[in-house]
């Protein structure tokens, strides 16, 4: 058992690509669900819109990376409007069902043979990130070594950009939630009729929250696309949304840094468990070695599900949250 390797993996995972991507996605869900009470179960769709916008703009439209970013952000706004208009006037569970359905619609279209020429089918799209890495200011040999793990300069650049976006997103959320705007959405989360009776256009606030959260989702999509230098329909499955929910609830919903803390801990544990289990299997540890590698990977997701249940039951406020304030157990 190589503990230093396991530790190195945990550290690099805690601050690595996935942590950034899911941190941003969870910040978006925090705006929507944590503060406003909107159940967006289609965050994966917003991520897909961001990622594919960059890929398709560069590869198929031969335009620059930045146009891809612009299209991705516009696409996320349009998607939020399309989902919000029919559902934001209805009960909370309708938004949940429609957003999860929309995410699946988008994924099915992206991976379809019919649109393969444009979206690349189940193989996805590659070779679009040059415009992004052209901005890399780090010297070519700027590798970061954490024990046995090496982070090369491209990865390092992606992480720097990614964590900057996380910081920016946190700043935006922090500024908003302590303002009168934040007061209104928190009111909506608890009782939208009360807020309505005070002359606030509840629909507009919900829509703003949905759009803003969707934009953070699109940012997550950009980072996963350039970081992996690949977009693939299957990285935007419904499970991605549910992982982001688990991260948010772990860190603490309705807390500015809840999603950030959640993502760091989640990915350290998630990847740490993976390496640990694989090493245990190789080392022939009793019981554990009855599993194979696939089963170990499946076991991790099983534990995510179990963790989400237990958190929701015993500590719905997560690590940072305040149970009194949290409206999760309302209704």
């Amino acid at each position: 058992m190589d503990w230093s390797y396991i530790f190195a993996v945990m550290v690099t995972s805690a601050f690595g690509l996935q942590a950034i991507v899911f941190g941003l996605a969870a910040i978006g869900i925090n705006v929507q669900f944590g503060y406003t009470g909107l159940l967006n179960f289609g965050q994966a769709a917003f991520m897909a819109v961001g990622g594919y916008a960059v890929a398709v703009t560069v590869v198929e439209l031969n335009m620059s990376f930045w146009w891809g970013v612009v299209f991705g952000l516009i696409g996320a706004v349009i998607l939020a409007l399309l989902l919000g208009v029919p559902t934001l006037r209805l009960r909370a569970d309708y938004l949940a069902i429609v957003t999860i359905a929309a995410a699946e619609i988008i994924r099915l279209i992206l991976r379809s043979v019919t649109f393969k020429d444009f979206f690349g089918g189940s193989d996805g799209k590659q070779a679009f990130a040059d415009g992004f890495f052209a901005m890399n200011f780090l010297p070519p040999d700027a590798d970061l070594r954490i024990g046995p793990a090496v982070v090369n300069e491209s990865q390092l650049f992606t992480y720097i950009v990614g964590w900057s976006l996380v910081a920016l997103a946190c700043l935006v959320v922090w500024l908003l939630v302590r303002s009168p705007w934040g007061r209104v959405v928190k009111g909506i989360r608890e009782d939208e009729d009360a807020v309505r009776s005070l002359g606030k256009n509840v629909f507009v606030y919900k829509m703003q929250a949905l759009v803003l959260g969707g934009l953070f989702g699109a940012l997550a999509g950009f980072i996963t696309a350039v970081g992996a230098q690949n977009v693939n329909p299957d990285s935007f499955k419904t499970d991605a949304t549910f992982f982001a929910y688990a991260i948010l609830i772990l860190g603490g919903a309705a807390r500015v840094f809840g999603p950030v803390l959640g993502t760091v801990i989640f990915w350290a544990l998630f990847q740490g468990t993976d390496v640990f289990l694989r090493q245990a299997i190789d080392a022939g540890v009793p019981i554990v070695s009855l599993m194979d590698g696939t089963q170990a990977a499946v076991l991790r997701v099983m534990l995510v599900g179990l963790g989400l249940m237990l958190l929701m039951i015993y500590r719905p406020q997560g690590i940072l949250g305040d149970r009194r304030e949290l409206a999760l157990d309302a209704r």
Partner: protein
Amino acid sequence: MPDNASTPAAMSRHEEAMRILADVPREPGVPKPDPILVADHVTRSFGGLKAVDVSHVEIQRGSITALVGPNGAGKTTFFNLLTGFDTPDTGSWLFNGKDLAGVPSYRVARMGMVRTFQLTKALSKMTVIDNMRLGATHQVGERMLQALLGLWRGQEKTVTAQADELLARFKLLEKREDFAGSLSGGQRKLLEMARSLMTDPTMVMLDEPMAGVNPALTQSLLEHIKGLREQGMTVLFVEHDMDVVRDISDWVIVMAQGSVIAEGPPGEVMRNEAVISAYLGGHHDKALTDSGVSFTEEASGT
């Protein structure tokens, strides 16, 4: 009453309303000299049951009008319709001369007609002062961009000062930083009323303001309602308790089975034959009651 005598201004507003309404005929749907609200042919049915069927009603400006009636008479549904929280099948109504039919609830509130709820909607997971601040209208900080740029701090001070003033008036100032959920039922009613005043209304619609309030607070609530009239606001309130109605209202509108069956000053209305039989012969109302009750529960649960 002795304490009324000690405030001559209060007497004058009340007396003025009484004087104006003195010549108004005591019949359902009667025109008023200076109506702030005029409703025509407002109907709403639930699965074949007509919960509300009001052909004509007017509310006198500057008065306290009580809306009474047996359980399930359609009072709350009528309230919901007037304030845009429910959509009528037919009907139109003018508030301050402006047509309100089809206007969404938030805009009704912005136009100066603010309401409270039968089941109090104090936002229990917010502090008392934040509940109050939420009530203020035209806050620049409630717009996303301005909120991001922090352009709201100046106005926040004004809003907070206004909120503190109202909290002091409603004797809630020492609860300022507490979560609203920690207040008693009566204090929540007070908070909800104070919060509604933050919107600077011209007409206040109170849905059973006395429900669930302990007797010690009842008198204070009544004084606050009278105070609204003294400030020139019009009050329409739903109430069951006839003593309360007699004590504070200038005019009473009685509803039964969805329609207005009688109108008049409190003392006279309570001797009205139709009213007495509606209250006593509540047999026909059973079906209506169920529909009315279940509706309000669903509406408030959303």
